[in-house]
């Protein structure tokens, strides 16, 4: 039988002692024969001896965090052999120090509850993020005290703050002297922390469906899946170097506040900055999937939205690699490369200016809970200081960014790999002279085919049997702008509604630009 260890943490005066007293007084605690109360707090404590005696609670007081050593639980075990341990932890001590202590095998950390006064929480979080973040991150329960005066809107924000640090935390607003319910749910003798089973279920489902596919003798299905997997993995493999590069650049932008003149110019938000934003992509010649983390890095740094979007839309048109690819793909029509650059820049700048005119601000379109997220645990606990520390931070930040972006790349690549195996056949049915229909098909292809901006010129070329030059050009230019994989990646930081709006904006602009081109060419 496991002996549970519950930890109640938070700053002084947050109500930890009150809560622990209620736990000890509760009917649930009566199931325990011997309880150890570990108090990690300097100075006096106000537990009355009578209560401790009555409930057979042995209290141990640690005044210094150096008292947290591997002997602690061993001694508790040999001296008291309790069947329940509750810890009042010091909010200013490193929580992983307690969690990392050697414990007897039957000791299980169960609840970590962070208790805070609702009114002062946000203020404290802003000022002491590096101190509080680990405590909250490790908690599975955050309890807000004295919340009566707090407006419901602020309460929602508090919940969001917590969710963004760790989405698995349950947030509770506690009316005074009403902790019975939580105690009943979370602190009873047989209580558990659950959750492992869901992971197992998902895993079994994935494994089982793969197994079923394998034993199916249907050759067509198998080979279709096999080629889908090959396409899927090949998209991932070619994206990996670019994602890593993008992750490092993005982390660099986040750590070294304003890198250089260009970023400063974009950040200025003046009208001329649109031109610079559009041209900036020339100096960052990486593929569009590597661009996405840079965009989110810029937006997190509060770079104005319109210029950032201009930068994003134009970047894949002005990249020198892309221009070269265009010249190679259409050697007989070098002017198409020029048209691609101009069209991309025009769509980018006009799009940015429209966003500025309708006065969309960063906070309208950013998913708010993402704002804290760049302060991950990795960036907070640095070994070094100064330049060395900054390099370490970039490295750690790039790792965080890599894991975050990869999730979306995997989903996007999977979707586009599946669609690509289905699409070529369907595409052929659209052969026809109708240029508007061709344009629509090309928009669809741009969204779904997820081709890298550096190579989509060649793919566009392969359409030239069924489509005329302008719709193909539209496909090439819009490809990176509308790419579903990029959209999914951007949805990590930008609101879905805004992305749909942006896609519509790009489509309308392209319709006008390429409509005009079709007229002249």
């Amino acid at each position, binding site marked *: 039988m496991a002996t549970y260890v519950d930890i109640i943490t938070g700053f002084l005066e947050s109500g930890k002692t009150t809560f622990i007293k209620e736990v000890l007084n509760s009917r649930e605690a009566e199931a325990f024969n011997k309880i150890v109360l570990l108090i990690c707090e300097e100075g006096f404590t106000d537990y009355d001896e009578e209560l401790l005696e009555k409930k057979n609670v042995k209290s141990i007081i640690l005044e210094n965090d150096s008292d947290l050593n591997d002997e602690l*639980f*061993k001694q508790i075990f040999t001296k008291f052999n309790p069947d329940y341990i509750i810890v009042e932890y010091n909010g200013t001590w490193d929580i*992983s120090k307690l969690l*990392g*202590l*050697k*414990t*007897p*095998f039957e000791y299980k*950390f169960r609840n970590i509850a962070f208790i805070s006064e609702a009114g002062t929480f946000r203020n404290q979080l802003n000022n002491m993020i590096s101190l509080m973040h680990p405590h909250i*991150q*490790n*908690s*599975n329960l955050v309890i807000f005290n004295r919340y009566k005066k707090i407006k419901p809107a602020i309460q929602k924000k508090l919940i969001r703050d917590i969710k963004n640090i760790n989405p*698995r935390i349950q947030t509770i607003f506690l009316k005074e002297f009403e902790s019975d319910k939580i105690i009943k749910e979370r602190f009873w003798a047989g209580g558990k922390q659950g959750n492992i089973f869901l992971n197992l279920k998902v*895993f079994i489902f*994935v494994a089982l469906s*793969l197994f079923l596919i394998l034993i199916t003798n249907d050759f067509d299905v198998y*080979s*279709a899946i*096999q080629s889908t*997997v*090959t*396409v*899927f*993995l*090949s*998209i*991932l*493999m*070619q994206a990996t*170097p*670019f994602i*890593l590069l993008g992750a490092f650049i993005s982390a660099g932008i986040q750590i070294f506040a304003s890198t250089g003149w260009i970023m400063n110019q974009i950040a200025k938000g003046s009208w001329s900055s649109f031109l610079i934003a559009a041209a900036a992509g020339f100096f960052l010649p990486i593929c569009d999937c590597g661009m996405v983390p840079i965009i989110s890095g810029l937006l997190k740094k509060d770079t104005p939205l319109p210029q950032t979007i201009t930068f994003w839309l134009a970047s894949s048109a002005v990249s020198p690699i892309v221009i070269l*690819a265009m010249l190679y*793909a259409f*050697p*007989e029509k*070098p002017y198409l490369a020029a048209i691609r650059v101009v069209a991309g820049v025009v769509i980018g700048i006009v799009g940015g200016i429209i966003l500025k005119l309708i006065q969309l601000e960063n906070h309208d379109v950013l998913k708010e809970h993402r704002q804290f997220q760049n302060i991950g645990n*990795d960036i907070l*606990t640095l070994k070094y200081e100064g330049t060395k520390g900054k390099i370490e931070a970039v490295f750690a930040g790039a*790792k965080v960014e890599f*894991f975050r972006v990869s*999730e979306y790349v*995997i*989903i996007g690549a999977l979707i*586009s*790999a599946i669609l690509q195996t289905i699409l*070529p056949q369907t595409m*052929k049915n659209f052969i026809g002279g109708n240029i508007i229909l061709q344009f629509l098909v090309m928009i669809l292809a741009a969204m779904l085919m997820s*081709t890298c901006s*550096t*190579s989509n010129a*060649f*793919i566009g*070329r*392969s359409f*030239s*049997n*069924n489509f005329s030059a302008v719709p193909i050009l539209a496909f090439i230019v819009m490809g990176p702008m509308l790419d579903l994989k990029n959209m999914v990646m951007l949805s990590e930081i930008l609101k879905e509604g805004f992305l749909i709006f942006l896609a519509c904006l790009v489509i309308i602009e392209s319709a006008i630009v390429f409509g005009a081109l079709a007229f002249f060419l």
Partner: protein
Amino acid sequence: MGRKINKEAVIQFFILISMACLLIYVMLSRKVNYYVHPRFYIGLWISIVILILFAISLISKIKKARHNVNSRHYLIFIIPLMAALIFPPAGVSGKDMNMAESSLSASTSEKQADENIDPESSTETATEESVVREDASKKYEQYEVAGVIVIGDDIFSDWFFDVYDHIDNFVGKKYQYLAQVYSMKDFKADQFLAGRHFMVCCAADLAGYGMVCESDIRSKLTDDEWITVTGTITAYQYNGYAVPMLTDVTITEAETPEVEYIYFNNY
């Protein structure tokens, strides 16, 4: 006595290490040929190093105990890792026929478009114009072996498109190359397409390109079979356009080459 560890760091560590191992395996076993263009190799090696460095940096974090780790979103990484383990890389077979078919008509209609827009200019870039004007077939003469010009994989894409663009220069000359057999719906009974799959960037853009062949033993050939084809180029009218065709063809069986695809070397 036990110790709690940082489950998240452990999960990340294993993901990074298995990604690096898979990439190393794919690179060393040359299976990478099926996935991406060789120009990504350097990038992939650098990625492997970075992934391993990421993993190493996590080792010290494993000791930093964590509670209530949100590990569910790492499940998504199982998909590519499992997929790579279970499904060996394969030719994107579902696409073969279509691609081969469309490529032929693609080249022809492109030619038509060129003629429409600017009949005067050469179909090559301005820089290459002077070379082209002489004779596009000249640069391949150095590969001649006993009266037959042998086209290796490294020059195949250049040669192939030169032939399409300047049939006149190539007519009457004898060439040999390694090819796969592709069928076309509207071909005659003794015709097939002798071609290869071209990769521009990755397996997502594989496309088959080939030349029309006429041969008596057509019926004995199966689709996607590997052959060494030797033949003389003639101009052939296909859907109203002049396309190159191999006549007087000799076909010998060939083994599947280690590298099945032709890689564009455009930049």
